[in-house]
């Protein structure tokens, strides 16, 4: 009985593999459309515009990051992040995982980076809008702000900057949501985005492939939960140093 079961399983697997292989071959053989397809552009623009129109939202994400070691071996790290945003000038992001345990708080006046486990935080005066703050953090402090480019009011332009090719791969289901799967190419990276279908075209997944590095490591973010009607408290965008937590400086870039 077990051997029969195994045989059937093997046969089934062989069938699947063949199907996958055939599918793979036929897809590989498909000519990639030249240029950027208008459909791909339209779907992405609808998503970024929709998000830009949201006055406040929060999102839970699951992120994987690949690191390539000198030997060429790839190592994957996993993190969870929760981002809360209120336009035009408030942001909070918490991420925890293998490599980081960090809270980022922007209250419209200052930007705070807090490592709870290390019991250190740093705080600096910041510009008064999300766009300006993100730019300030990136260029002056070398800090990557959570929610990064999505929060820019011109998110679409930033995403599409340098993109030379793009097409709609097809339909997909991400975290239970039916999505359109888009693929883009830019000079150094490939980008895949999955956008939820329906009245709320939210981005559900993003994969960035760094093409010009050995073994093309990937960074992937999946939004496990979107909340477009979050209830923010007085403390959501405020930072109060917990007892025993020490303030340190940001090193100039």
């Amino acid at each position, binding site marked *: 009985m077990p051997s029969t079961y195994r045989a059937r399983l093997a046969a089934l697997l062989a069938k699947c593999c063949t199907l996958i292989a055939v599918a793979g071959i036929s897809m590989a053989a498909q000519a990639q459309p030249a240029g950027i397809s208008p459909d791909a552009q339209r779907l992405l623009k609808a998503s970024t515009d929709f998000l830009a129109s949201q006055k406040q939202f929060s999102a839970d994400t699951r992120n994987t990051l690949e690191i390539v070691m000198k030997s060429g071996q790839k190592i994957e790290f996993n993190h969870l*992040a929760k981002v809360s945003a209120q336009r035009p000038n408030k942001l909070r992001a918490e*991420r925890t995982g293998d490599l980081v345990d960090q809270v980022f708080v922007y209250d419209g006046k200052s930007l705070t980076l807090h490592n709870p486990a*290390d019991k250190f935080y740093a705080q600096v005066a910041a510009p008064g809008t999300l766009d300006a703050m993100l730019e300030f953090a990136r260029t002056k402090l070398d800090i990557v702000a959570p*929610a*990064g480019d999505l929060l820019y009011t011109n998110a679409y332009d930033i995403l599409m900057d340098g993109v030379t090719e793009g097409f709609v791969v097809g339909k997909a289901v991400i975290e239970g949501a039916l999505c359109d799967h888009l693929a883009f190419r830019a000079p150094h*990276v490939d980008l895949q985005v999955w956008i939820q279908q329906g009245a709320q075209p939210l981005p559900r997944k993003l994969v960035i492939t760094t093409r*010009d590095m050995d073994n093309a490591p990937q960074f992937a973010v999946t939004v496990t939960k979107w909340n477009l009607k979050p209830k923010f408290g007085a403390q959501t965008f405020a930072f109060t140093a917990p007892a025993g937590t020490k303030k340190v400086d940001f090193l100039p*870039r």
Partner: protein
Amino acid sequence: MKRIQVLKAFGVAMTLPLLYLAHVSPDTSSGFTLVRSASAVVGAPLTPVSAAGVARRTTVRAASASAASTSAASQQQAATAKQQEATAQQQAATAQQQAATAQQLAAAAHPPIGSTVAALPAGCKPVTEGGVEYQNCGGVHYRAAFQGNNLVYVVQ
């Protein structure tokens, strides 16, 4: 234009992100030190920018010695496995390990002022001078600071 180029480089990257994840420091302390110091490339948002940043820090920090010893150690393991066929390789690995040890000693003895490390050496004691807390690690003083998203210790 400059901004555009930077964005091209890593922009798409940090993109959508709710995502932040970006800057996962291959250097933070806790746990994965070995992987972090050995990692040559970060495949994240921030692509080239991040990689360049990491490389810059790697060169500066004393941990570069530990990276060297890590790679020497793994090379030595590989050499041991192939010992019969590859004695020469083992010799090379041993030589590298010796070099790494020497480097490590040198780094431990004289970390350059202003250089940063991702993790403090063992046996540090907190000292407060002028209201600022330092870590005294065998006579070398370190002060915590954020370098981008990464917490580092700066040699005073």
